[in-house]
């Protein structure tokens, strides 16, 4: 086995106590969330803090947040692949896994929010395409299917390696890898076809991902509610999605670098370059946020001002200003410096950004609903422990899926990384060769 195979396959062959302990902790959190959901199913959505007029709350916030995170994979594996950024190679697998599991948990939030989840098939039986809900259902389904495919395709050559080289594993895993490898032999024709399929999917998945968070924003944007009915929402949500996606990816990368000893591949270069993209997304986010509030305040429509004031000065001010600090100020101050774009710097910023982006989704969903145009009085939203438990359970589920996945599958796209190393090596050779040639020519 080559050095990279030895490192990458090591966690697949040996499992320590720490793994089981982590799974147990996450499992307990998930089960606690399941218990809370069981209560909600039997008692009704009355166990939440929702009511009239705050019909949507934490669950919709989680939905937008998780679907947003899923945009990490597309950025890394599609956009960076199309632009032939070679430094992406060691992080594609992690990014795609984030995408698939974030989409799964995000989609689950809608089911959790529904009053009659057992009637979910009505969406297929009686679905109306005039409803933005159907747009979401369609786009998210397509994105999930293409992301799973995009996670799977580059894994085929790795499956073949595991089939051939992992001899000391359980028979069912051997069988799994053999079936999943689809008879991969690594011939030239097989490589050509795989590269072609990945290239097509890489381009196709970009508009799909953009459509996903655009239609997620349109769930709000297509209503006439104050501060929801806004044309900026589509691009604003997409930018926020990629922003929070990178943040989650950084956290995953840093943890895996330490625990799985991936330092030789997840280097300072990856953290620096991705950190630059992170900074760009932060600045874009600040620009969109500023534009949104500037237009609202200058126009000063009565109903819009009620909501804007609630966010900036009213009962949501803590969430709003924490969001500005976490998403705009901290990332800018840290990432603008080269010394900030290290593992430690990016991870600290990422934790702030994930908190900030969750709060951003919350300050979009809740405040508009507390200030309806016609009502006896303005409402106050206080989430309950059930909503908190389901939220924590959902986050634990995301982590658990992620951890179990990387116990069974390699954390790096080995062949892609090797290919990248080869490209670099040849590039160096050609450079060397040409300077020698030049000198030879000069002498002649």
């Amino acid at each position, binding site marked *: 086995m080559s050095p990279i195979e030895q490192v990458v396959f090591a966690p697949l062959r040996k499992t320590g106590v720490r793994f089981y302990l982590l799974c147990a902790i996450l499992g307990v959190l998930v089960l606690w969330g399941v218990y809370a959901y069981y209560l909600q199913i039997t*008692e*009704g*959505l*009355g166990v939440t*803090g*929702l*009511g*009239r*007029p*705050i*019909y*949507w709350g934490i669950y919709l916030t989680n939905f937008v947040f998780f679907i947003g995170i899923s945009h990490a994979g597309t950025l890394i594996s599609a956009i960076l692949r199309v632009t032939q950024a070679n430094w992406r190679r060691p992080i594609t697998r992690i990014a795609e896994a984030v995408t698939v599991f974030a989409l799964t948990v995000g989609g689950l939030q*809608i089911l959790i*929010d*529904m*009053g*009659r*989840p057992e*009637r*979910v098939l*009505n*969406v297929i*039986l*009686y*679905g*109306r395409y*005039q*409803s*933005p*809900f*159907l747009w979401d*259902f369609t786009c998210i389904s397509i994105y999930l299917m293409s992301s799973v495919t995009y996670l799977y395709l580059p894994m085929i050559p790795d499956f073949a390696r595991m089939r051939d080289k992992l001899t000391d594993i359980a028979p069912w895993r051997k069988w799994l890898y053999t079936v999943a490898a689809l008879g991969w032999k690594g011939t030239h024709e097989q490589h050509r076809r795989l590269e072609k399929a990945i290239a097509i999917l890489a381009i196709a998945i970009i508009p799909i991902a953009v459509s996903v968070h655009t239609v997620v924003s349109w*769930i709000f944007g*297509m*209503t*006439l*509610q104050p501060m929801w009915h806004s044309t900026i929402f589509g691009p604003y949500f997409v930018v926020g999605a990629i922003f929070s996606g990178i943040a989650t990816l950084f956290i995953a990368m840093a943890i895996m670098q330490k625990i799985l000893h991936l330092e030789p591949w997840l280097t300072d270069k990856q953290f620096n370059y991705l950190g630059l993209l992170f900074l760009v997304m932060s600045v874009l986010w600040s620009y969109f946020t500023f534009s949104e509030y500037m237009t609202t305040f200058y126009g000063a429509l009565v109903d819009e001002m009620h909501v804007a004031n609630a966010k900036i000065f009213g009962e949501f001010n803590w969430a709003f200003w924490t969001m500005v600090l976490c998403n705009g100020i901290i990332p800018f101050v840290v990432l603008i410096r080269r010394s900030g774009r290290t593992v430690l710097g990016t991870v600290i910023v990422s934790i702030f950004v994930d908190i900030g982006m969750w709060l951003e989704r919350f300050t979009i969903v809740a405040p508009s*609903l507390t200030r*309806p*145009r*016609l*009502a*006896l009085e303005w*409402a106050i939203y206080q989430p309950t422990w059930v909503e908190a438990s389901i939220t924590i359970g959902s986050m634990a589920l995301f982590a658990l899926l992620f951890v179990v996945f990387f116990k069974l599958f390699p954390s790096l796209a080995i062949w892609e990384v090797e290919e990248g190393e080869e490209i670099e090596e040849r590039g160096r050779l050609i450079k060397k060769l040409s300077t020698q040639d030049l000198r030879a020519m000069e002498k002649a």
Partner: protein
Amino acid sequence: MPRWTMAIDLDKCLGCQACTLACRMENNTPIAGPEQANLGRAILWNEVIPQVEGEYPNVTARYIPRPCMHCEDSLCTKVCPVKATYMNEEGIVLVDYDRCIGCRFCTVACPYTTRYFNWHEPYYPESLKAHLNPDVPLRPKGVVEKCTFCVHRLHKARAKAEAEGRVFQASDYVPACVQTCTGRARYFGDLDDPTSLVSQLLKSPRAFHLLDELGTHPKVFYLREG
């Protein structure tokens, strides 16, 4: 086909909330209790909203009884993913309780907040159970409900006219709130009939719609205090 419309004369409204009560009894809306009502879980298809403007001593107060507006361009039916809420051929916006998935998209889309969700299994005290209206189905937990313009009364009136062998007339059908109104402030009728009282009232300079600027074209209109 008639187009059913309601007019509410704010000059005549006493703010007594008899309409709210009549609606409850007519439509079997469940009891929430004070604690749940504080959390916004009370189901009142026809709420009377007090609007107080100015500060003492220069205060003006008005009561706005607010049933569902049955908008011509209704935002609720527009966003429903499964056509559980829809407008029938006579312009009444209804909910199919057996199809509703409880996503509450319609409730957030409605600018009048006239749509209600069943947060718990509906509860009726024993004393009320004997007096539930058999013409109106009880709603299960987890679905949306709202004012139907007492559509069951329309069905009944049609059936009655047919049984008696005469032509159904708009005056045969009147919702419970209109029938009850203490100040006789409510009028109900067919907007497609230019001679009907509601059609005449709509021409009044006092006539206005709630949140007219949103372009929802409500079928409930009000007559401003004179």
